[in-house]
């Protein structure tokens, strides 16, 4: 099972089309690295992207250098996945 320890989901609020375009550029700059959960669509909608731990520093620097405001939506994906797996195991025991 793939491990997502330290991976984060960042929520970016683009102010305008220019900033959206910068986010779209990220896909080209980091092919197969940044996984858009909610892609850059329009300024009124937030952009959510999963960033591997190994790319976090670069991506956050990219956002900061272009004035793109972001927050951390999920701090560590693996923590949620561990909770999810444990909840499934517990439920399976109860079902049996």
């Amino acid at each position, binding site marked *: *099972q793939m491990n997502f320890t330290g991976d984060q989901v960042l929520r970016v609020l683009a102010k305008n089309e220019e900033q959206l375009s910068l986010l779209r550029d990220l896909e080209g700059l980091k092919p197969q690295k940044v*996984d858009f959960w909610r892609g850059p*669509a329009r300024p009124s909608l937030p952009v959510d992207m999963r960033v591997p731990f190994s790319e976090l520093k670069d991506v956050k620097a990219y956002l900061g250098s272009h004035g793109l405001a972001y927050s951390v939506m*999920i701090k560590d994906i693996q923590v*949620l996945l561990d909770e*999810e797996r444990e909840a499934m195991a517990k*439920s*399976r025991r*109860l*079902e049996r």
Partner: protein
Amino acid sequence: STSSFSYASYHTLEEIYSWIDNFVAEHSDIVSKIRIGHSFENRSIVVLKFSTGGPQRRAIWIDTGIHSREWITHATGIWTAKKIVTEYGKDRTLTDLLDAMDIFMEIVTNPDGFAFTHSMNRLWRKNKSTRPGIFCIGVDLNRNWKSGFGGNGSNNNPCSETYRGPSPQSEPEVAAIVDFITSHGNIKALISIHSYSQMLMYPYGHSSEPVPNQKELNDLAKDAAQALYEVHGIQYIYGSISTTLYVASGITVDWAYDNGIKFSFTFELRDTGRYGFLLPASQIIPTAQETWLALRTIMEHTLNHPY
């Protein structure tokens, strides 16, 4: 038996398929299982048929899980299936509906991808098809339909999460649905359920041009979103896909609409920015409960507005 099954928990493909078999056995008077095809890795593609009799009646199609990491949609589909059998004979609207129409539900639309989310990569979105000479695996099944195929909002790069595939309906998971719906010929509503973002949308995704039935679809989406809101106070936005979310080509509901299914809708279930695809299991039942009221609104309108 399905009596010990927890509807408030996520389940593996094997558990869901086992639940389906038990569910059909326990409610054989109203539910049957149809195998409409097989996936790229040769897993069965299964549809539940809810019917009180009569061949080729008008029907409603509901699919969940076309994007395998959207686990809340499969869970909502299972709960909804159970709700249909428990409400038949009690809920006047649903009873009238099932006395006149059939409901088809495909709970695991992307079985290979779903199995992969349990075994290898929880965040896998596409199917698992491979092609000689192409390194990356999988096609986005919601870009593989023959409506605006290859247009904006889809990708020809096999490594992209929105890779459209080599040709329209190249993927067995999509072709199976197309063949089934086309040969049935009397599907009057199609509802494709995704997560997350809390949206209820109608065609088109590939174009910002309003569809001919835009007003009726928008009014119905508004009513459905309101019905959903009244359950737990969760707000959905609604509108056409291209104007509400983004331009997306080769998608399920555009194909449905272009093939004569007027009441074509797609949901994005909870949430708006805390868990994304990792919605905790504690939210399965509330999500399913509110979605049910929206589904019921669309189904009732379909029953009362034959075309």
